[in-house]
């Protein structure tokens, strides 16, 4: 990856393509690349849908190599949902493909003068950009089908659906999976709306004729990769739990803990949880059968294979296996206990190009407002279809939970910095709430993931059984997660890395052998801190203050059943999270 592709969509005579060397951005990848470019090149106070904003798409540092689990891709911009800096990442094929083509980043700049739509085709011979008005208001599935017919069934696609074209703040960007379906999404923060504002419907990536990126030290790389894979396969979570049940294995457990936000965060347990659990989902998928039903990888090089394929009652493909967050958002959060209905909502979200977390939270707010009853799956489907159709109500819903709450006068709106919370109630698991409140991204559980802070020793060790430490743990997790997000590694490697020091060492060795430079735990921590400092500085320049690092007030006032707890971390403590 030795070049950056820049496309100015607002050139005087049409889009202008420029390929340039990495320059100051050498050595960066994934989130480190997207956040650095956005922070340096985007005016923090610009309108997110203006020509001044930029959309940056960057494979991880190890993407395109033979390293297992290295196929994540980051998308960055100023977010139309939060108004701050955004990095959303995704699995799928395009990360590996772009990296093999040599691109460390694609930067979409400017804005077309007219309401025109384009497609971008990238292959080993170069880059083309062509008008694509025939794709207007197509869903992701139809868009990809047309690209497949034109360019073959091996290409990868990065596309937006109707929501992105309408520039809705819940719009996602879709990345095709190994079956060339648009099922993997950079979902959070409205990145799809920014792509829509640039007039780009789809980027077709064809890596035919390209080979895997070569490590600087092939022997050590091979050895480290072998140890890394062995560690992932031998761990109970990455080797057994995730492949068997997918991420939705969490439903029963989070519900048992009383931390499962139910009916728009009004209680912590859902009566229908067992019916939509990972266990029930795996049983349903296995009984219906079909290729890749209960266990499937989302990109080339994935060995955990936590995904699957959801076939309907008649055995027809409907969508990929809905993930835990999706099953919660459209399920328990809306009082819905029907896996077929949840899968349909997932399909609609993927096709329209919508963040499933944001949409599920939004429908929950809409239900509280009285637009439908909790538990009414048909009504939920109807509401999401309104978004795809672009009706006035649909455009409100597609703008996310915060806007919907304002329009319909709802107090209980579970957002931070305008972004919906994911599937863990912050009152029950308050260390996660610290991350929700303070991450520069807006409420996001993956911003401070279970990365190996214990092994890294970032910020010193915290006694797990002492009550103190939530702020420290959140800080440490945010630092290490920012670093992992820059490598292109799937966050699910975290569990094996956290528990098995030899697997963590294998990861360090893998990166070091690839780059030909030694890498220490301190280097990883410093990378994470650097990314966070950059993101925080952008947000501060955009007008964010400590008052934005807060949960909505009702989490401090409304006790959550069954534990009857409220959020109790003080504002003063929250303000110390970034003291490093």
């Amino acid at each position: 990856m030795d070049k950056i592709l820049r496309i100015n969509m607002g050139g005087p005579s049409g889009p202008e393509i420029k390929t340039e060397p990495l320059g100051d951005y050498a050595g960066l990848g994934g989130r480190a690349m997207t956040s650095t470019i956005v922070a340096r090149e985007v005016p923090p106070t610009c309108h997110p849908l203006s020509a001044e904003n930029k959309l940056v798409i960057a494979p991880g540092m190890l993407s395109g190599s033979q390293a297992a689990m290295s196929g994540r891709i980051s998308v960055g911009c100023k977010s139309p949902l939060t108004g701050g800096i955004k990095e959303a990442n995704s699995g799928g094929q395009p990360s590996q493909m772009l990296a093999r083509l040599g691109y460390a980043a694609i930067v979409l700049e400017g804005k077309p003068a007219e309401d025109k739509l384009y497609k971008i085709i990238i292959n080993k011979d170069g880059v083309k950009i062509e008008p694509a008005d025939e794709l207007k208001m197509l869903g992701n599935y139809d868009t990809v089908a047309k690209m497949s017919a034109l360019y073959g069934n091996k290409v990868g696609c990065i596309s937006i659906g109707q929501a992105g074209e309408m520039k809705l703040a819940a719009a996602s960007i879709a990345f095709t999976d190994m079956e060339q379906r648009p099922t993997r999404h950079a979902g959070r923060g409205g990145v799809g709306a920014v792509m829509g504002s640039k007039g780009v419907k789809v980027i077709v990536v064809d890596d035919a004729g390209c080979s895997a990126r070569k490590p600087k030290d092939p022997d050590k790389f091979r050895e480290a990769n072998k140890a890394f894979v062995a560690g992932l396969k031998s761990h109970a979570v990455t080797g057994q739990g995730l492949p068997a049940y997918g991420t939705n294995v969490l439903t029963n457990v989070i519900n048992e803990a009383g931390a499962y936000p139910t009916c728009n965060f009004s209680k912590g347990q859902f009566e229908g949880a067992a019916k939509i659990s990972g266990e029930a989902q795996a049983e349903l998928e296995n009984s219906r059968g079909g290729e890749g039903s209960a266990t499937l990888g989302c990109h080339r090089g994935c060995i955990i294979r936590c995904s699957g394929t959801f076939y309907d009652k008649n055995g027809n493909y409907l969508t990929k296996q809905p993930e835990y967050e999706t099953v919660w958002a459209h399920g328990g959060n809306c009082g819905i206990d029907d896996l077929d209905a949840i899968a349909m909502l997932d399909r609609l979200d993927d096709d329209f190009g919508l963040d499933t977390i944001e949409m599920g939270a939004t429908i929950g707010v809409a239900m509280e407002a009285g637009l439908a009853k909790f538990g009414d799956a048909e009504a939920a489907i109807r509401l999401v279809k309104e978004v795809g159709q672009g009706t006035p109500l649909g455009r409100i819903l597609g703008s996310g939970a915060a806007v919907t709450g304002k329009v319909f006068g709802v107090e209980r709106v579970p957002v931070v910095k305008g972004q919906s919370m994911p599937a863990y109630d912050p009152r029950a698991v308050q260390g996660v709430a610290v991350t929700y409140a303070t991450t520069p991204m807006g409420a996001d559980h993956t911003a401070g993931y279970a990365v190996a802070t214990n092994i890294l020793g970032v910020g010193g060790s915290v006694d797990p059984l002492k009550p103190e430490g939530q702020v420290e743990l959140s800080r440490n997790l945010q630092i290490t997660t920012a670093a992992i997000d820059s490598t292109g590694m799937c966050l699910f490697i975290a569990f094996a890395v956290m528990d098995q020091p030899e697997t963590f060492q294998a990861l360090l060795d893998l990166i070091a052998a690839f780059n030909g430079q030694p890498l220490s735990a301190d280097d990883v921590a410093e990378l994470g801190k650097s990314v966070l400092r950059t993101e925080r500085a952008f947000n501060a320049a955009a007008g964010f203050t400590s008052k934005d690092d807060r949960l909505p007030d009702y989490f401090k006032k409304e006790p959550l059943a069954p534990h009857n707890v409220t959020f109790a971390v003080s504002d003063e403590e929250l303000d110390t999270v970034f003291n490093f």
Partner: protein
Amino acid sequence: MDTPSLFYQEQDMKPACPALYLMVPEPGILSLGMIFSAGVGLMVQTGFSLRATMIEQLKVTADYLEEKLQTIFLNNRPVDDLDGVFVAPGDILALSAAMPGLVGATLRRAGHLAAMRREITQGKTARQAATTTAMITLKLFNLACRDLGPELVKRGVLARPDQLAGLLAALKDPESKDISIVFDNKYLEIPAAIDRLERLCPTGLVELKVSARQP
């Protein structure tokens, strides 16, 4: 140490309830997930530590407990200290393997992120002065259900009629064809058994036992 009278051996201590016997080619194939997710009743001797209860009464091996049962709840509260928590009548015990996700890792027994859920953590409990035979509710999730469920149903569990009716209704081929059902000493087909279960008091209990039929 007191020797507990173990899991559900004392027939005279069982609540009086109808019995549902299922004979299947192999108990492991029965779709047990839903019944254990919702919870089943077990008669145990209470007053022992969680570790002793699981090893000596539920017959979980010490190695399995240590290595696999990484996520344990008592009355919805994650447990860190298996020796400092004592089982009382009416308790709800839930067992799971290690879980993915940040919160999955946070809920892990004595994991390094445990402080992040301190408000809901199960603290030490006082040991009862005397032991007694009483019912607790057991929930098994994910790999714990797969690994422990078949043996538990062989030994017998208590469940609500609607749970068992749901279990039978959910059986698909070939399970539904290969199953034999004896309900209150009478052989029944699946629809008749469901009908009988649905006519029972919904809050009552039925004993479920599953045995492996020789091929």
